């Protein structure tokens, strides 16, 4: 099975405080470290597992500037066979739709049976997978947490739905799936692994390589554009209890009693 996984390089948010920069044009990026989007990493691990079971190749593709290459390389160190870097000034400022347009051209060029994306990334939009599927006119499923190859062109998939329940469906190949975290336990990639793929070639594709008209992507093609970033001014918020632990606990017990929660 020929699998393509779309990945994104995002800021590592675990311990980092994400704040808005002084001008309000972006988040403060100084001192940030980046890694591959967590959902995408689960997708690559799943792709590798499918390939190890049924054969084929796993290609990872990412759209972005020079630094993007490092995450492509990391996923190849993890086990992906090939990497493709989509980079072109015309692609800068693309909205989700623009990215999907470029990826669609890439899929058409390479002819893949299964395309995986992460369910969402740092901007929480979760849109590229679904858009890509519609552009390719292929079936789609979002928030997939289980994949089983059941036939030459069928998959049994599980989707995460409300209430922690799981919806099982049969989907025809070729298709596009967006992957939810927790679908598997991704393997570890160490420095050694990355060094091993340090000199592997990662082809760079510009829009001419994939035959995409410039006006459909980038800033020109974008229908949703960011104006600025700001820190939310939230409402009154909680009444913070002050004092020593003793005093706070006493106050709290008073409050809970008044709510009838402690007899």
């Amino acid at each position, binding site marked *: 099975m020929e699998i393509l996984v779309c990945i994104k390089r995002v800021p590592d948010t675990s311990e980092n405080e994400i704040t808005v920069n002084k001008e309000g044009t972006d988040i403060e990026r100084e001192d940030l470290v980046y890694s591959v989007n967590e959902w995408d990493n689960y997708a690559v691990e799943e792709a590798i597992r499918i390939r190890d079971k049924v054969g084929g190749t796993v290609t990872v593709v990412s759209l972005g500037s020079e630094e993007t290459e490092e995450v492509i390389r990391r996923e190849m160190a993890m086990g992906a066979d090939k990497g493709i870097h989509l980079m072109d000034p015309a692609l800068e400022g693309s909205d989700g739709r623009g990215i999907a347009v470029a990826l669609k051209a890439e899929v058409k060029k390479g002819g893949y049976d299964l395309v995986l994306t992460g369910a969402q990334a740092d901007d929480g939009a979760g849109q590229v997978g679904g858009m890509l599927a519609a552009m390719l006119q292929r079936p789609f499923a979002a928030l997939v947490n289980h994949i089983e190859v059941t036939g030459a062109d069928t998959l049994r998939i599980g989707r995460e739905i409300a209430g922690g329940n799981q919806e099982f469906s049969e989907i025809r190949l070729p*298709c596009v799936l967006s992957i939810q975290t927790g679908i598997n336990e991704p393997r570890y990639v160490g420095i050694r692994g990355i060094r091993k793929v340090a000199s592997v070639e990662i082809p760079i594709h510009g829009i001419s390589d994939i035959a995409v008209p410039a006006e459909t992507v980038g800033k020109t093609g974008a229908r*949703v554009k960011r*104006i600025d970033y700001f820190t939310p001014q939230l409402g009154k*918020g*909680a009444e913070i209890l002050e004092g020593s632990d003793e005093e706070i*606990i006493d106050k*709290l017990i008073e409050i809970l*009693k008044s709510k009838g929660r402690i007899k």
Partner: protein
Amino acid sequence: MAPMIAYILHKNGVIDDTALELKSAAEMLEPEAVPVAVVMGSKKDVEGVCQEAARSFATVWKIENEALSYPNAEVIRPLLSRILPKGSIVLMPHEHFSMDLAPGLSICQEAAYLPDAVGFEAREGQSLRAVREEFNGMVRTHVACDLTQGAVITLRPGAFTPNERKDKSGQIIDKTPEAFQEGAPTLQRRFIELVEAEAGDVDITKSEVLVSVGRGIEEQENLEIIHELGKVMGADVSCSRPIVDAKWMEKSRQVGTSGKTVKPKVYLALGISGSFQHLGGIKGSPFMVAVNKNPKAPIFHVADVGVVADILDFVPKLSEKIGEAVK
């Protein structure tokens, strides 16, 4: 004027609360328009929902067919494309189903896609200035959405005040024939079955008081102090997603959009940061007490009372005092 379409969610014949939020949002966007409620499902489910929707929406489009007895986005999307006028503005709540349906729908409609909007600020001609969150709610952005060719917009549940007025007697139009004129859409994704999350020993959706724990507990062993507090308060214990992912508690105890929806009277959020996925599982505005050692934790914006403290220190002391008070 672009047609305003509100896609109505429903379960077991009951309309979802978000329908009224869609209505307000539609009114904010196009005050002059008559928003249309679209209800799709099997005959048995759809009847009651259409009646209810007709109390809020002047026009309701009904599409009923056995093929829709389970909401399959891959079937619904092509059907919608057949009946929705080009240039429509389609609104739906941002959740599991719409994440499946909406992005593709925007492509079929050749419309813009604005996901998970938490507010609308202004409309300047065909440009909508809206608010979105990024980085798990740590920052917000203003975005400009081009509505010229229509849009598909998903709304953060609870971000838009619902329009509770139910004084209309809307017209229910059966759009089924139009939708199925070309026959049922080719089935590329076939629904097999629903597997419900394991029922645990406690049904937290019925609890009146919940003592809920998050990552601040740090280690599985420390959960003892939470259970102790639950015991002296006569409350059930629930948790946020990271606790379940680490396998320290059963999934049946998880509060959140991918867990259980709870409606307690009192909710103690201990060591929980307050992500919207967690808060999305709390309905009915309970009295919320938050304890967290990070004074900037988002939970303090939604809680009624807050304590800035390390739950590992605070909770045992609280349990002790409550234990004494109860005697």
